[in-house]
């Protein structure tokens, strides 16, 4: 079962929009892109590490905002 090409294209479009927003480091999304392209264990691990790190930062920001 291959990944749907349209789904991958959609993901890349989201990455581009986030890059343009300037609020995320391009390096993070390049890591994601590499995982999509490589389909390798190391690239996937790097992407997951990037998600964990960025999600930690964003969770803290969201909690701060929620508490006003």
């Amino acid at each position, binding site marked *: *079962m291959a*990944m*749907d090409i*349209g*789904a*991958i294209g*959609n*993901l890349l*479009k*989201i*990455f581009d*929009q*986030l890059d343009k*927003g300037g*609020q*995320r480091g391009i390096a993070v*999304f390049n890591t*994601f892109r590499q*995982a*999509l392209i490589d*389909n*390798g*264990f190391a690239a*996937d*691990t790097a*992407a*997951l*590490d990037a*998600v*964990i790190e*960025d*999600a*930690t930062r*964003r*969770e803290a*920001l*969201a*909690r*701060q*905002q*929620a*508490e*006003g």
Partner: protein
Amino acid sequence: MRRVNRSVLVALVVLLSGCALPRARHIATVSVVSAHSVLSAIQDTEMDLVCGKATAPAPPACVLIEQHRDISGKLANAFALEKKIAVAVKAIPPGAPSANVAESLGQLQALIDAVLDLIPRSAQRQTLVANIGGK
């Protein structure tokens, strides 16, 4: 609003839910990355829509401060859940036939839908939904 990024998340949830896949870890990784990208886009956009900010539309299209707190609480829970999923996927060994994260991804999708439901309609919201693959 229940169809946000269906082309990615739901398809992957279905793929991960039952069949044995030789690339289960990779597909689960793509799913986590997708969810993170969608959540990030929502958080970045919503922050700009809070009433009173220069980037926010006029009421009633802007996000009231009470709504912003509610949304932020849900986003915090979503990011926390996403981290748990990412850690679980990272622990999947190479060649594992399946990734048992479909239920968690479904919960994440529900949180994304709940957050989007709380954001009032505006041009920025419409652009956001289009960018993340919603309808």
